[in-house]
Each structure stands twice: as structure tokens, then as C-alpha cells.
């Protein structure tokens, strides 16, 4: 495979929910070792775009290729390459932290699952509560456990949907370390958020999504938080949440 071929490559991506348009033609490229941060107000199509990239939903039109595979056709293969952190934490509250991770490790088919699970728990700082049920966790701890689930392996593509929501400072640091490590290992990442400051800090490239279209795209050097904030205000209210 070509070294510089984009890992994520979409052309004219369109998605309709019944009679409502969510994406209206998205052209996007993300290279290996690149972090693209996607800004956009609620309902601008960020989550839909990530879901299409993960192969979870089928696009209405256009093409999306991830690591050379078409998302519509090769769903199984793509799911093996992607690590995703969604809106919901996707954890089973009746099970303990370790049980959740062990289940995830089995489903992901990672090597030496026991060691992996222990390492991930340690990185997320959850060793002490590994045997406690997720139900007893605070929302910050749940987010960290979801993060630990993501860290069970090294995906080629990382998709993060509002990762900063409900994340405490310590956990934000864990997330950023993980992102940088993955980037160094050559992973491509798409991070959707409406937190401009935090998003700007980790981005290589930035894009703004408004009403299902890309209204801005550029490298970090070419812009500033202030310029982004103005652009963002044009396309919907910016919501600065810590």
C-alpha cells in the first residue's frame, strides 16, 4: 500500500434519514499520522459522519473508503481497524470494569487479553476499582473506562465523538497521551467536538461542519482559535463547555 495514500477518503458523501438530510456531500481526506478535528454545532452531522466512517450506517450516496476498503461493502474488515469512542459509553452497568474490558477484548480478538486488560486499566487509572460494578462509577470514571476499552489495542483509525464531554482533567490527559501515541504509531484520527480550545490544541487539521456540509477546512498553522470562533459563530452558536 502507498505510504501517503489517505487512510480516510470520502467523496460526495450523502446521508438522508428518511426525508431529513444529515450529510449533503462531504469530501474529506485524512492521512496516516494525522489528527483531524471536526467542529460543528449540534445537528451539523458530526455524529452521522463518524457513524458512516465506522461502517455503522450505510451512506445514501457517495463513497467512503477507510484504509482502502469501502465502508458499505467491507464492514467486517473495517471494524477490525477502527477504534471508536461514541456518545454513550457502551458499557454494561451490571458488570465490573474488568469484566467489561475482558468481554471487549474477546470480541476484539486481541492477543494476550489478560495482560491487555490489566495494562488498559492501569493507563486509565482504574486498577483500584477494577472489581467494582460500573453502576457504582461516577460519570467521569465511566468515560475513563470507555477510554480504557479504546486502549485495548492499536487501531489504524480512531474516531472520537465528543470525547471531552464529561471527562475530568486527569482523563483528558490520558486521552491526549493516547492520541499522540497513536499518531506516532501512524494512526489517522477524526475527533468531533464543539470545544474549540481543546480541539485546536491536538489538531493537525481542522474542519467545520454546518448543516451537513464542510464550510471550512484548513491546517492548524493557517488559522487561529479566534478566527475559528468567528467562523463557527457564523454557522451556529459555539458552545464552550469545559
Amino acid at each position, binding site marked *: 500500500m502507498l505510504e501517503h495514500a489517505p487512510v480516510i477518503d470520502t467523496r460526495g458523501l450523502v446521508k*438522508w*434519514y*428518511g*426525508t*431529513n*438530510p444529515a450529510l*449533503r456531500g462531504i469530501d474529506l481526506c485524512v492521512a496516516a499520522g494525522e489528527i483531524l478535528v471536526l467542529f460543528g454545532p449540534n445537528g451539523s452531522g458530526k455524529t452521522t459522519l463518524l457513524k458512516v466512517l465506522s461502517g455503522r450506517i450505510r451512506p445514501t450516496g457517495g463513497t467512503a473508503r477507510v484504509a482502502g476498503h469501502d465502508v458499505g461493502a467491507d464492514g467486517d474488515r473495517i471494524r477490525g481497524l477502527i477504534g471508536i469512542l461514541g456518545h454513550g459509553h457502551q458499557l454494561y452497568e451490571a458488570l465490573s470494569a474488568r469484566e467489561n474490558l475482558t468481554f471487549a477484548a474477546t470480541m476484539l480478538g486481541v492477543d494476550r487479553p489478560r495482560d491487555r486488560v490489566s495494562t488498559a486499566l492501569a493507563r486509565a487509572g482504574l486498577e483500584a476499582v477494577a472489581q467494582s460494578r460500573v453502576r457504582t462509577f461516577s460519570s467521569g470514571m465511566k468515560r475513563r473506562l470507555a477510554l480504557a476499552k479504546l486502549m485495548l489495542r492499536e487501531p489504524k483509525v480512531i474516531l472520537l465523538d465528543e470525547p471531552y464531554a464529561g471527562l475530568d482533567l486527569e482523563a483528558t490527559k490520558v486521552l491526549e497521551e493516547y492520541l499522540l501515541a497513536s499518531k506516532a504509531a501512524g494512526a489517522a484520527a477524526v475527533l468531533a467536538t464543539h470545544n474549540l480550545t481543546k480541539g485546536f490544541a491536538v489538531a493537525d487539521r481542522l474542519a467545520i461542519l454546518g448543516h*451537513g456540509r464542510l464550510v471550512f477546512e484548513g491546517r492548524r498553522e493557517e488559522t487561529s482559535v479566534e478566527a475559528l470562533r468567528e467562523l463557527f459563530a457564523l454557522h451556529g452558536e459555539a458552545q464552550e463547555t469545559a
Partner: protein
Amino acid sequence: MSGRRVERALGLLAAVGLAIGLCIGFLYAPPDAEQGEVQRIMYLHVPLILVSYLAFFVVFVTSILYLARRRERHDAIAHSSAEIGVLFTALAIAAGSIWGRPTWGTWWTWDARLTSTAILLLIFVGYLMLRALVDDPSRGATVCAVLGIIGFLDIPIIHMSVVWWRTLHQPASILRPGPPTVAPQMQVALYANLAAFALLYAYLLFKRVRLEQARWELSRLRMEVAG
């Protein structure tokens, strides 16, 4: 428009066919030796049931095609055919029930054929209800395609179980609809009516699919307006 012309021709054919079927059923075929004149309900009841099986078979085939190819047309045919199938089974059960009153002395009896038709009606009423409950049209089409397929696959099993249920534990009823040996004139009447009802089904299906196409057209226009 050739579609319209085909539809009109089918409508005409079905009307003529039904008229001929009625004449043959009432004038040409002799009254039944045991049941007398009432037996003529058979020329309504049996074609309705058989054509509704055909309708559900069409649902089965088009549902498979929809899952394989995701064409709106296949879903439109499946949905329309299911609706007509439900209408026909309901009418068949009503006619059978009216036939049962003078023959068995009750409006309803757990006769094998009547029972399995009733079960079929319940399954496909569920299909239509499910269709009405799902808001996203493509999700509704997929879910209903799955239900249409398993509903049809269930038919032979239902039929077998109900027949065993009625025969393994109690003697078969002596008076069953449809005499054991059918007179040739009766067979002619039955087949003529069967053909007429099949034509009627084709006509209704054509008409109903056109409604579905108009619905798709409308949602496509709405998409254009919105985006």
C-alpha cells in the same frame, strides 16, 4: 402511459372474468348432492384463499429481492401484495364462516383450513401494523421484508401442525367444505373463478403499487425541496 393501459386492461379483464365466474358458478355448476345450493360459496371462498397464498408468496419473493438489491420497487410490491393478501384472507374467512353456519351449524369451527387461514391473517395484520409503526421508510421496508419472509416460511409448518392437531386427536369432521369427489362441472367453475380472482389480484396489485410509487415520488420531491 403504457402502465395505465395495462392497469385498465387488467381491470376490464378482471371484471369480465368475475362476471363469467359468477355465471358458471351459479348457472352451469350443479348444486352439491349433500350440501345443496350453499356449496356454491366454495367458488368464492376457495379462490380467495388460494389467491391470498399467491399474494403472500409474492411478498416472500419480493422481500428477498428487496433485501438482496434494496430497490424501492420490490418493497412497494411486497407492501401492496401483503395488504391485498390480508384483504383476501379476511374475506375468505368471512365467506367460510357464512358457509359454515348452514353446513356445520356454527359460524366458526376450528377446522384445519379455516384455522390456518386465520393464523396467516394474524401474521400479516402484524406485518401491516409493524409497517405503520416504523417511521423511517427504508428501516420499515427492511424490517417488514424480514417479517414477510419468515411469515411465509411459517405457512407450511402452520398448516401441518393444524392438520395434525385436528386429525391426531379427534376424527375428521364428516362434513368438510369441498366434497370428496368433485363433479367435473364444479371443477370448471372452481378454475374459472380462480382465474378471475387471480386477475382481480393482479389489477389491485397494479393499482396499489402505483399508490406506493406516488408516495416515493412525494418523499423524493420533499428531499429535493429540503436539500
